[in-house]
Protein backbone atom coordinates (compact mmCIF):
# COMPACT_ATOMS: atom_id res chain seq x y z
CA UNK A 1 0.00 0.00 0.00
CA UNK A 2 1.55 3.26 -1.05
CA UNK A 3 1.44 6.55 0.80
CA UNK A 4 -0.18 9.23 -1.37
CA UNK A 5 2.23 11.95 -2.52
CA UNK A 6 2.89 15.07 -0.46
CA UNK A 7 5.35 17.91 -0.06
CA UNK A 8 7.76 17.37 2.78
CA UNK A 9 9.24 19.74 5.33
CA UNK A 10 11.72 18.97 8.06
CA UNK A 11 11.98 22.12 10.19
CA UNK A 12 14.84 22.42 12.66
CA UNK A 13 13.05 24.57 15.22
CA UNK A 14 9.63 24.87 16.81
CA UNK A 15 9.23 28.36 15.38
CA UNK A 16 9.80 27.04 11.90
CA UNK A 17 7.28 24.27 12.48
CA UNK A 18 4.70 26.71 13.81
CA UNK A 19 5.33 29.02 10.93
CA UNK A 20 4.69 26.26 8.42
CA UNK A 21 1.57 25.18 10.28
CA UNK A 22 0.29 28.70 10.34
CA UNK A 23 0.88 29.05 6.62
CA UNK A 24 -0.69 25.80 5.50
CA UNK A 25 -3.18 25.11 8.31
CA UNK A 26 -5.53 22.27 7.35
CA UNK A 27 -3.51 21.41 4.30
CA UNK A 28 -0.67 20.28 6.53
CA UNK A 29 -0.20 17.48 9.03
CA UNK A 30 2.51 17.05 11.63
CA UNK A 31 4.60 13.91 11.51
CA UNK A 32 5.87 12.42 14.74
CA UNK A 33 5.88 8.60 14.86
CA UNK A 34 3.87 8.15 11.70
CA UNK A 35 2.01 5.12 12.99
CA UNK A 36 -1.36 6.88 12.83
CA UNK A 37 -0.69 9.47 10.12
CA UNK A 38 0.63 7.15 7.44
CA UNK A 39 -2.01 4.51 8.08
CA UNK A 40 -4.73 7.12 7.60
CA UNK A 41 -3.04 8.46 4.50
CA UNK A 42 -2.69 4.99 2.97
CA UNK A 43 -6.38 4.42 3.57
CA UNK A 44 -7.08 7.83 2.03
CA UNK A 45 -8.81 9.00 5.20
CA UNK A 46 -6.34 11.89 5.36
CA UNK A 47 -4.72 13.49 2.33
CA UNK A 48 -2.56 16.40 3.49
CA UNK A 49 -0.68 18.34 0.83
CA UNK A 50 2.13 19.03 3.25
CA UNK A 51 3.73 16.86 5.88
CA UNK A 52 5.84 18.55 8.55
CA UNK A 53 8.30 16.21 10.23
CA UNK A 54 8.97 17.20 13.82
CA UNK A 55 11.73 14.69 14.40
CA UNK A 56 14.42 17.06 13.15
CA UNK A 57 13.77 19.46 16.03
CA UNK A 58 15.99 18.98 19.03
CA UNK A 59 14.71 18.76 22.55
CA UNK A 60 11.19 17.60 21.86
CA UNK A 61 11.79 14.12 23.23
CA UNK A 62 12.38 15.04 26.84
CA UNK A 63 10.63 13.89 29.99
CA UNK A 64 11.17 16.22 32.95
CA UNK A 65 10.21 15.81 36.56
CA UNK A 66 9.79 18.81 38.79
CA UNK A 67 9.15 18.37 42.52
CA UNK A 68 6.51 21.09 42.51
CA UNK A 69 5.07 20.99 39.03
CA UNK A 70 5.07 17.30 38.29
CA UNK A 71 5.88 15.46 35.07
CA UNK A 72 6.29 17.16 31.71
CA UNK A 73 6.40 15.02 28.57
CA UNK A 74 7.52 16.39 25.22
CA UNK A 75 5.74 15.75 21.93
CA UNK A 76 8.29 13.31 20.54
CA UNK A 77 8.47 11.05 23.58
CA UNK A 78 7.67 7.52 22.43
CA UNK A 79 5.50 5.00 24.26
CA UNK A 80 8.55 2.85 24.75
CA UNK A 81 10.37 5.69 26.52
CA UNK A 82 7.43 6.18 28.87
CA UNK A 83 7.17 2.46 29.59
CA UNK A 84 10.79 2.34 30.73
CA UNK A 85 11.20 5.78 32.31
CA UNK A 86 12.14 5.42 35.99
CA UNK A 87 10.08 8.39 37.20
CA UNK A 88 6.97 7.23 35.37
CA UNK A 89 7.39 3.73 36.69
CA UNK A 90 7.82 5.01 40.21
CA UNK A 91 5.13 7.64 40.41
CA UNK A 92 2.61 6.73 37.74
CA UNK A 93 3.19 3.03 37.20
CA UNK A 94 -0.28 2.43 35.80
CA UNK A 95 0.46 4.91 33.02
CA UNK A 96 3.55 2.91 32.09
CA UNK A 97 1.42 -0.23 32.11
CA UNK A 98 -1.16 1.39 29.88
CA UNK A 99 1.52 2.51 27.44
CA UNK A 100 2.93 -1.02 27.44
CA UNK A 101 -0.44 -2.19 26.18
CA UNK A 102 -0.42 0.20 23.22
CA UNK A 103 0.19 -1.35 19.82
CA UNK A 104 3.14 -3.67 19.54
CA UNK A 105 6.83 -3.50 20.37
CA UNK A 106 7.57 -1.93 17.00
CA UNK A 107 4.73 0.58 17.28
CA UNK A 108 5.86 1.59 20.76
CA UNK A 109 9.34 2.35 19.43
CA UNK A 110 7.89 4.69 16.84
CA UNK A 111 4.64 6.10 18.19
CA UNK A 112 4.52 9.08 20.51
CA UNK A 113 2.22 9.76 23.45
CA UNK A 114 1.27 13.16 22.06
CA UNK A 115 0.62 11.65 18.66
CA UNK A 116 -1.65 9.10 20.29
CA UNK A 117 -3.60 11.80 22.11
CA UNK A 118 -3.89 13.94 18.97
CA UNK A 119 -5.24 10.93 17.12
CA UNK A 120 -7.95 10.96 19.79
CA UNK A 121 -9.13 7.42 19.33
CA UNK A 122 -11.96 6.70 21.78
CA UNK A 123 -10.07 3.51 22.70
CA UNK A 124 -6.66 5.03 23.36
CA UNK A 125 -5.04 3.18 26.23
CA UNK A 126 -3.12 6.20 27.43
CA UNK A 127 -6.19 8.40 27.64
CA UNK A 128 -7.97 6.95 30.66
CA UNK A 129 -4.88 6.97 32.95
CA UNK A 130 -4.03 10.49 31.84
CA UNK A 131 -7.59 11.63 32.45
CA UNK A 132 -7.58 10.40 36.03
CA UNK A 133 -4.22 12.08 36.56
CA UNK A 134 -5.88 15.39 35.60
CA UNK A 135 -3.42 15.86 32.80
CA UNK A 136 -3.13 19.16 31.01
CA UNK A 137 -1.83 19.85 27.52
CA UNK A 138 0.06 22.90 26.36
CA UNK A 139 -0.95 23.98 22.88
CA UNK A 140 0.99 26.56 20.94
CA UNK A 141 0.78 28.30 17.59
CA UNK A 142 2.82 30.97 15.94
CA UNK A 143 1.16 33.77 17.84
CA UNK A 144 0.19 32.32 21.15
CA UNK A 145 -0.38 29.42 23.45
CA UNK A 146 -2.96 27.95 25.76
CA UNK A 147 -3.27 25.17 28.29
CA UNK A 148 -6.27 22.86 28.25
CA UNK A 149 -7.30 19.90 30.33
CA UNK A 150 -7.18 16.57 28.61
CA UNK A 151 -10.92 16.24 29.08
CA UNK A 152 -11.47 19.47 27.13
CA UNK A 153 -8.96 18.35 24.54
CA UNK A 154 -11.07 15.41 23.36
CA UNK A 155 -14.08 16.71 21.49
CA UNK A 156 -15.37 13.65 19.67
CA UNK A 157 -14.18 10.39 18.10
CA UNK A 158 -10.84 11.25 16.45
CA UNK A 159 -11.55 14.93 17.03
CA UNK A 160 -9.62 17.29 19.25
CA UNK A 161 -9.87 20.90 20.18
CA UNK A 162 -6.74 21.67 18.18
CA UNK A 163 -7.00 24.47 15.68
CA UNK A 164 -5.32 23.72 12.33
CA UNK A 165 -2.39 25.99 13.19
CA UNK A 166 -1.86 24.59 16.70
CA UNK A 167 0.39 21.87 17.98
CA UNK A 168 0.79 20.15 21.34
CA UNK A 169 4.21 20.76 22.89
CA UNK A 170 3.76 19.40 26.34
CA UNK A 171 1.81 16.86 28.36
CA UNK A 172 1.72 17.98 31.96
CA UNK A 173 0.87 15.56 34.72
CA UNK A 174 0.59 17.33 38.08
CA UNK A 175 2.54 15.97 41.01
CA UNK A 176 0.75 13.12 42.67
CA UNK A 177 -0.86 13.65 46.08
CA UNK A 178 0.46 11.57 49.00
CA UNK A 179 -1.13 8.18 49.70
CA UNK A 180 -2.37 7.75 46.20
CA UNK A 181 -2.13 5.10 43.56
CA UNK A 182 -3.58 4.28 40.21
CA UNK A 183 -4.61 1.18 38.30
CA UNK A 184 -5.37 0.46 34.67
CA UNK A 185 -7.48 -2.57 33.74
CA UNK A 186 -8.49 -3.52 30.24
CA UNK A 187 -10.08 -6.08 27.99
CA UNK A 188 -8.98 -6.66 24.43
CA UNK A 189 -11.40 -6.70 21.53
CA UNK A 190 -10.58 -10.25 20.68
CA UNK A 191 -7.18 -11.77 20.88
CA UNK A 192 -4.17 -10.18 22.37
CA UNK A 193 -3.21 -7.65 19.76
CA UNK A 194 -5.29 -4.76 18.78
CA UNK A 195 -7.73 -2.31 20.11
CA UNK A 196 -8.89 -2.20 23.65
CA UNK A 197 -12.54 -3.08 24.04
CA UNK A 198 -12.85 -1.40 27.41
CA UNK A 199 -10.17 0.40 29.40
CA UNK A 200 -10.70 1.51 33.00
CA UNK A 201 -8.33 3.71 34.97
CA UNK A 202 -8.76 4.59 38.62
CA UNK A 203 -6.70 7.05 40.60
CA UNK A 204 -7.35 6.81 44.29
CA UNK A 205 -6.20 8.92 47.21
CA UNK A 206 -6.92 6.95 50.33
CA UNK A 207 -6.33 7.25 54.05
CA UNK A 208 -4.90 3.78 54.64
CA UNK A 209 -5.78 3.77 58.35
CA UNK A 210 -9.52 4.12 58.10
CA UNK A 211 -9.88 3.52 54.37
CA UNK A 212 -11.54 6.84 53.74
CA UNK A 213 -11.44 7.76 50.11
CA UNK A 214 -10.19 11.35 49.99
CA UNK A 215 -10.57 11.44 46.27
CA UNK A 216 -11.26 8.94 43.53
CA UNK A 217 -11.05 9.54 39.84
CA UNK A 218 -12.49 7.01 37.41
CA UNK A 219 -11.69 7.08 33.73
CA UNK A 220 -13.03 4.86 30.96
CA UNK A 221 -11.99 4.49 27.33
CA UNK A 222 -13.63 2.84 24.36
CA UNK A 223 -17.11 3.17 25.84
CA UNK A 224 -18.13 6.59 24.57
CA UNK A 225 -17.34 9.00 21.73
CA UNK A 226 -14.34 10.18 23.76
CA UNK A 227 -12.54 8.80 26.81
CA UNK A 228 -14.59 9.88 29.83
CA UNK A 229 -14.52 10.43 33.53
CA UNK A 230 -17.32 8.65 35.38
CA UNK A 231 -18.16 11.58 37.63
CA UNK A 232 -21.36 10.18 39.12
CA UNK A 233 -19.48 7.05 40.11
CA UNK A 234 -16.76 9.18 41.66
CA UNK A 235 -19.33 11.03 43.78
CA UNK A 236 -20.47 7.75 45.28
CA UNK A 237 -17.03 7.09 46.72
CA UNK A 238 -15.58 10.54 47.35
CA UNK A 239 -15.16 11.21 51.03
CA UNK A 240 -16.62 7.86 52.07
CA UNK A 241 -15.13 4.80 53.64
CA UNK A 242 -14.31 2.38 50.88
CA UNK A 243 -16.06 -0.94 51.31
CA UNK A 244 -17.13 -3.69 48.97
CA UNK A 245 -20.76 -2.63 48.67
CA UNK A 246 -19.81 0.93 47.80
CA UNK A 247 -17.23 -0.20 45.28
CA UNK A 248 -19.80 -2.31 43.50
CA UNK A 249 -22.24 0.58 43.51
CA UNK A 250 -19.67 2.91 42.05
CA UNK A 251 -18.70 0.35 39.40
CA UNK A 252 -22.33 -0.13 38.46
CA UNK A 253 -22.83 3.65 38.21
CA UNK A 254 -19.72 3.96 36.07
CA UNK A 255 -21.09 1.41 33.62
CA UNK A 256 -24.31 3.40 33.39
CA UNK A 257 -22.37 6.52 32.48
CA UNK A 258 -21.02 4.88 29.35
CA UNK A 259 -22.49 5.32 25.88
CA UNK A 260 -21.05 2.40 23.90
CA UNK A 261 -22.02 2.26 20.27
CA UNK A 262 -21.04 -1.28 19.36
CA UNK A 263 -21.41 -4.37 21.57
CA UNK A 264 -23.08 -2.13 24.14
CA UNK A 265 -24.25 -4.83 26.54
CA UNK A 266 -20.81 -6.38 26.82
CA UNK A 267 -19.02 -3.06 27.12
CA UNK A 268 -21.27 -1.96 29.96
CA UNK A 269 -20.75 -5.24 31.78
CA UNK A 270 -17.01 -5.01 31.35
CA UNK A 271 -16.94 -1.39 32.46
CA UNK A 272 -18.49 -2.50 35.70
CA UNK A 273 -16.11 -5.43 36.16
CA UNK A 274 -12.99 -3.46 35.26
CA UNK A 275 -13.78 -0.39 37.37
CA UNK A 276 -14.28 -2.65 40.35
CA UNK A 277 -10.98 -4.42 39.64
CA UNK A 278 -9.19 -1.12 39.20
CA UNK A 279 -10.46 0.30 42.49
CA UNK A 280 -9.41 -2.83 44.33
CA UNK A 281 -5.97 -2.86 42.76
CA UNK A 282 -5.41 0.83 43.52
CA UNK A 283 -6.38 0.22 47.13
CA UNK A 284 -3.94 -2.65 47.39
CA UNK A 285 -1.11 -0.51 46.10
CA UNK A 286 -1.70 2.15 48.73
CA UNK A 287 -1.75 -0.31 51.61
Amino acid at each position, binding site marked *: *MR*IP*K*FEYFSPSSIEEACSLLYKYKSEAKLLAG*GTDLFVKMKKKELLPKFVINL*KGIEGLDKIQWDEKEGLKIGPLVTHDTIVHHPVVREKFDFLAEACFKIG*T*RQVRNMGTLVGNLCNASPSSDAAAPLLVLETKLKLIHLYGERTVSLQEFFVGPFQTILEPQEMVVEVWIPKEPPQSAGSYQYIHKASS*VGETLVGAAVFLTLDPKDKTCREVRIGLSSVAPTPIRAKAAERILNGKRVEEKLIKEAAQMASEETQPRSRPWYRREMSRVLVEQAILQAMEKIQ
Partner: protein
Amino acid sequence: MKKQLIELKVNGESHELAVEPQRTLLEVLREDLGLTGAKEACGTGECGACTVLINGKPILSCLTLAIEAQGKEITTIEGLAKGAELHPLQKAFIRYGAIQCGYCTSGMILNAKSILDENPKPSREEILKGLEGNLCRCTGYNKILEAIMAVSIGEE
Protein backbone atom coordinates in the same frame (compact mmCIF):
# COMPACT_ATOMS: atom_id res chain seq x y z
CA MET B 1 6.86 15.96 -5.93
CA LYS B 2 10.54 16.39 -6.43
CA LYS B 3 12.91 13.61 -5.57
CA GLN B 4 15.41 14.19 -2.80
CA LEU B 5 18.93 12.90 -2.70
CA ILE B 6 19.39 10.83 0.42
CA GLU B 7 22.03 8.57 1.88
CA LEU B 8 20.99 5.39 3.61
CA LYS B 9 23.31 3.17 5.61
CA VAL B 10 22.05 -0.38 5.27
CA ASN B 11 23.86 -3.37 6.74
CA GLY B 12 26.99 -1.30 7.04
CA GLU B 13 26.97 -0.08 3.45
CA SER B 14 26.12 3.45 2.31
CA HIS B 15 23.77 3.99 -0.58
CA GLU B 16 23.01 7.24 -2.36
CA LEU B 17 19.49 7.35 -3.70
CA ALA B 18 17.05 9.81 -5.22
CA VAL B 19 13.61 9.26 -3.71
CA GLU B 20 10.28 11.02 -3.53
CA PRO B 21 9.34 12.01 0.03
CA GLN B 22 6.34 9.67 0.34
CA ARG B 23 8.36 6.54 -0.41
CA THR B 24 8.63 4.31 2.60
CA LEU B 25 11.82 2.70 3.80
CA LEU B 26 10.24 -0.67 2.98
CA GLU B 27 9.66 0.30 -0.64
CA VAL B 28 13.13 1.71 -1.06
CA LEU B 29 14.78 -1.34 0.48
CA ARG B 30 12.77 -3.72 -1.69
CA GLU B 31 12.49 -1.82 -4.94
CA ASP B 32 15.59 0.38 -5.09
CA LEU B 33 18.12 -1.74 -3.21
CA GLY B 34 16.81 -5.19 -4.12
CA LEU B 35 16.67 -6.23 -0.48
CA THR B 36 13.42 -8.13 -0.59
CA GLY B 37 13.77 -9.87 2.78
CA ALA B 38 11.52 -7.32 4.48
CA LYS B 39 7.95 -7.94 3.35
CA GLU B 40 4.59 -6.26 3.28
CA ALA B 41 1.76 -8.35 4.65
CA CYS B 42 -0.56 -5.53 5.72
CA GLY B 43 0.95 -2.11 5.07
CA THR B 44 -0.82 -0.61 8.08
CA GLY B 45 1.30 -1.55 11.06
CA GLU B 46 -0.30 -4.70 12.42
CA CYS B 47 1.65 -7.60 10.95
CA GLY B 48 5.34 -6.85 11.58
CA ALA B 49 6.51 -8.48 8.36
CA CYS B 50 8.25 -5.23 7.38
CA THR B 51 10.26 -5.05 10.61
CA VAL B 52 13.85 -3.86 10.25
CA LEU B 53 16.25 -2.66 12.92
CA ILE B 54 17.05 1.04 13.08
CA ASN B 55 19.94 1.70 15.47
CA GLY B 56 19.19 -1.74 16.86
CA LYS B 57 15.51 -1.08 17.58
CA PRO B 58 12.75 -2.92 15.73
CA ILE B 59 10.58 -0.55 13.72
CA LEU B 60 8.00 -0.89 10.96
CA SER B 61 9.60 0.11 7.69
CA CYS B 62 6.23 0.37 5.92
CA LEU B 63 5.33 3.34 8.12
CA THR B 64 8.77 4.97 8.02
CA LEU B 65 9.73 7.36 5.25
CA ALA B 66 13.00 6.58 3.52
CA ILE B 67 14.06 10.21 4.04
CA GLU B 68 13.58 9.86 7.78
CA ALA B 69 15.92 6.90 7.92
CA GLN B 70 18.96 8.93 6.97
CA GLY B 71 21.84 9.06 9.40
CA LYS B 72 20.80 5.86 11.10
CA GLU B 73 22.10 2.29 11.09
CA ILE B 74 19.60 0.16 9.27
CA THR B 75 19.82 -3.61 9.64
CA THR B 76 17.83 -5.95 7.41
CA ILE B 77 17.71 -9.74 7.44
CA GLU B 78 20.24 -9.79 4.64
CA GLY B 79 22.75 -8.20 6.99
CA LEU B 80 22.50 -10.72 9.76
CA ALA B 81 24.75 -13.47 8.50
CA LYS B 82 28.49 -12.85 8.41
CA GLY B 83 29.39 -14.10 4.98
CA ALA B 84 28.43 -17.77 5.01
CA GLU B 85 28.13 -17.90 8.80
CA LEU B 86 24.52 -17.65 9.85
CA HIS B 87 23.42 -15.75 12.93
CA PRO B 88 22.53 -18.11 15.79
CA LEU B 89 18.88 -17.16 15.46
CA GLN B 90 18.88 -18.08 11.79
CA LYS B 91 20.45 -21.43 12.60
CA ALA B 92 17.99 -22.06 15.39
CA PHE B 93 14.96 -21.16 13.30
CA ILE B 94 16.02 -23.72 10.72
CA ARG B 95 16.94 -26.39 13.25
CA TYR B 96 13.78 -26.13 15.36
CA GLY B 97 11.30 -26.04 12.49
CA ALA B 98 10.35 -22.43 13.17
CA ILE B 99 9.98 -21.70 9.45
CA GLN B 100 7.12 -22.89 7.26
CA CYS B 101 6.09 -20.55 4.47
CA GLY B 102 8.83 -18.15 5.56
CA TYR B 103 7.00 -14.91 4.85
CA CYS B 104 7.07 -13.68 8.47
CA THR B 105 10.55 -15.02 9.10
CA SER B 106 12.66 -11.96 8.28
CA GLY B 107 10.71 -9.66 10.59
CA MET B 108 10.42 -12.32 13.26
CA ILE B 109 14.15 -13.01 13.42
CA LEU B 110 15.09 -9.34 13.50
CA ASN B 111 12.63 -8.58 16.27
CA ALA B 112 13.82 -11.64 18.18
CA LYS B 113 17.38 -10.42 17.81
CA SER B 114 16.45 -7.06 19.29
CA ILE B 115 14.75 -8.80 22.23
CA LEU B 116 17.85 -10.86 22.98
CA ASP B 117 20.13 -7.87 22.50
CA GLU B 118 18.15 -6.01 25.15
CA ASN B 119 17.92 -8.94 27.51
CA PRO B 120 19.96 -12.08 26.75
CA LYS B 121 17.85 -14.25 29.09
CA PRO B 122 14.23 -13.27 28.62
CA SER B 123 11.37 -15.28 30.05
CA ARG B 124 8.91 -17.06 27.76
CA GLU B 125 6.31 -14.39 28.50
CA GLU B 126 8.74 -11.60 27.68
CA ILE B 127 9.59 -13.20 24.34
CA LEU B 128 5.96 -13.79 23.42
CA LYS B 129 4.96 -10.27 24.42
CA GLY B 130 7.88 -8.90 22.43
CA LEU B 131 6.78 -10.81 19.37
CA GLU B 132 3.11 -9.80 19.58
CA GLY B 133 3.58 -7.50 16.62
CA ASN B 134 4.88 -10.21 14.29
CA LEU B 135 2.00 -12.24 12.95
CA CYS B 136 2.53 -15.79 11.78
CA ARG B 137 -0.27 -17.89 10.33
CA CYS B 138 1.68 -21.10 9.74
CA THR B 139 3.50 -22.13 12.89
CA GLY B 140 1.31 -21.23 15.85
CA TYR B 141 4.53 -19.64 17.25
CA ASN B 142 5.48 -22.80 19.16
CA LYS B 143 8.68 -23.61 17.38
CA ILE B 144 9.55 -19.95 17.01
CA LEU B 145 9.59 -19.69 20.79
CA GLU B 146 11.63 -22.87 21.07
CA ALA B 147 14.23 -21.55 18.65
CA ILE B 148 14.60 -18.25 20.48
CA MET B 149 14.82 -19.92 23.89
CA ALA B 150 17.49 -22.24 22.53
CA VAL B 151 19.59 -19.28 21.45
CA SER B 152 19.06 -17.51 24.75
CA ILE B 153 20.43 -20.46 26.69
CA GLY B 154 23.39 -20.59 24.39
CA GLU B 155 22.54 -23.72 22.46
CA GLU B 156 23.46 -22.41 19.04
